[in-house]
């Protein structure tokens, strides 16, 4: 396959499907109980140096409890998929968890503004960066999910985004047209937050899927955090609603409000006041240190984090906001 042009970015993960197959061959196919504490799941499955991907989009259905625990446990030198990584990236940057970064969208929190902490860390020279786009990363996960080394797309051609990527332009043997080949991305470990999951890992969620189904298929190890556990009978009653089958999953952690301070569709809206507080305190290193102590290092777990930020009353308010209850007179 003649390469017309090759991006010069670094490919942080191996796109070889045979190596991935060798790993997947060893995964347990039995439907065994995988329930554990989030702390134990992070200890067991998230290692220094691993390449990490996080489910959801921006601060929506994002496993924030897991991000906090990764920082709390002091993971370092990780690769990270910056696939519209917003508040998750902000937290991981505060812990300087990663040093290799695939960028689609990073640093920003969309309409909320930019994270001084994330920006400073990425500009520090400590992070190696390769450029992609949102769809490019989706396509890379799709290729991995399909068990092939690449899939073609028609974006990025002619741009510096391509030049700083690790993708390659080739000529299509059917049409003679140029296409870009996006190399498969097999993360070492990923975390996805869902509404409901059984003890074996059969998981379902509502609202947009973002790229989480391809991510679940592509990743070597997968931690599910779930708002609530449900009986397996409930899964078996309606298998059409299962989004992630158990055999992809390594750990199931029940973490109510696990996406807080982000949005969990149909459950609770994002805590915009608290997210603004994050953005504000990052500008002052001392203040930020104290803030992290209060919100991450000083908390035993996610329940502790929620307790210092308003607890049950706050969660009720965010639920009312999510459901637009104020409009019902």
């Amino acid at each position, binding site marked *: 396959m003649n390469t017309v042009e090759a991006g010069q970015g670094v490919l942080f993960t191996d796109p070889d499907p045979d190596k991935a197959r060798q790993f997947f061959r060893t995964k347990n196919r039995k439907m065994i109980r995988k329930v554990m504490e989030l702390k134990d799941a992070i200890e067991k499955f998230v290692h220094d140096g691993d390449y990490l991907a996080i489910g959801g989009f921006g601060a929506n259905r994002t496993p924030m409890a897991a991000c906090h625990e990764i920082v709390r446990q002091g993971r370092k030198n990780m690769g990270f998929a910056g696939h519209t990584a917003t508040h998750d990236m902000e937290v991981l940057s505060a812990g300087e968890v990663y040093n290799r970064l695939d960028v689609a969208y990073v640093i920003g929190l969309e309409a909320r503004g930019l994270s001084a902490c994330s920006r400073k860390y990425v500009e520090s020279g400590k992070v190696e960066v390769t450029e992609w786009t949102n769809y490019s990363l989706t396509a890379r996960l799709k290729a991995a999910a399909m068990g092939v080394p690449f899939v073609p*797309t028609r974006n990025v051609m*002619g*741009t510096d985004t391509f030049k700083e990527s690790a993708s390659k332009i080739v000529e299509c043997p059917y049409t003679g047209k140029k296409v870009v080949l996006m190399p498969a991305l097999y993360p070492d470990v990923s975390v996805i937050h869902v509404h409901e999951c059984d003890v074996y890992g059969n998981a379902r969620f509502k609202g*947009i*899927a973002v790229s989480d189904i391809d991510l679940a298929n592509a990743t070597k190890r997968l931690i599910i955090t779930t708002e609530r556990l449900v009986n397996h009978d409930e899964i078996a009653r309606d298998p059409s609603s299962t989004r992630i089958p158990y055999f992809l999953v390594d750990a199931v952690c029940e973490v109510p409000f696990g996406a807080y301070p982000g949005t969990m569709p149909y459950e609770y809206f994002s805590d915009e006041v608290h997210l603004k507080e994050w953005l504000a305190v990052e500008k002052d290193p001392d203040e930020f240190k104290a803030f992290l102590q209060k919100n991450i290092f000083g908390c035993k777990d996610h329940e502790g984090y929620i307790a210092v930020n308003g607890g049950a009353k706050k969660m009720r308010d965010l639920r009312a906001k999510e459901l637009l209850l104020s409009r019902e007179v």
Partner: protein
Amino acid sequence: MADFNTMELMISIAARELENGASVGVGTGAPCAAAMLAQKTASPDLVIMFEAGGIRPRLPEMPISVGDSRTFYKASMAGSMGDAMEACSRGFVDYTFLGGAQIDIYGNLNSTVIGDHKKPKVRFPGSGGANDFASFCWKMMVMTPQNTKRFVEKLDFLTTPGWLEGGNSRMESGLPEGTGPYKIITDMAIMDFEPESKRMRVISIHPGHSFENVQENCGFQLLKAGHIEQTAPPTDEELRLLREEIDPYRYVIGR
């Protein structure tokens, strides 16, 4: 004439470009406000898509995120990023509205870095879905304040494709046929692109501005359309909709 700020002006002008029955891929902020305004004025059947998977929502308020619950409120489908982006890739999406830290004479955008990529002076978020939308949607539009820092001779980084190096270069690049930048809406003027050279060309100037003044706030030489229009200012109704219904907390129009 009603009093209005430049953000209100740009959004109102942008909304008028979205004809009824068209589809548009938008992000948060001004593009989303423009699409909402279009729906409430001439284009009730405008179809809004969000890259994270929200397809044709009935937006109850401005979303904070391209993936928050509002982006699929009473939608036709809460799908995946693949569903949304592949619809764009197949040619189902007519427009997109983008922005950036820098724009050049061919409508190319930079939202990645200022300075060298390996050691940037300033790091920005990167493409996000902008490169994808600009590659796939039929007509790419840009809404941006205009000054010589933004409208530059040479981008520090070409994140998102416009007409690339002009002429036929976009078509030759391999990007989908028939796509490309359509209009640039600034706080001073509306520009399109001269069909052959694909260089930016002023076609309409907003109230209170002149071509000279537009050129002064641009880092490259602008072409002039044969006939330059005077942009119609926002109507009272457009302003009322923006201020009362679309953005009552002034998240966007208060910037």
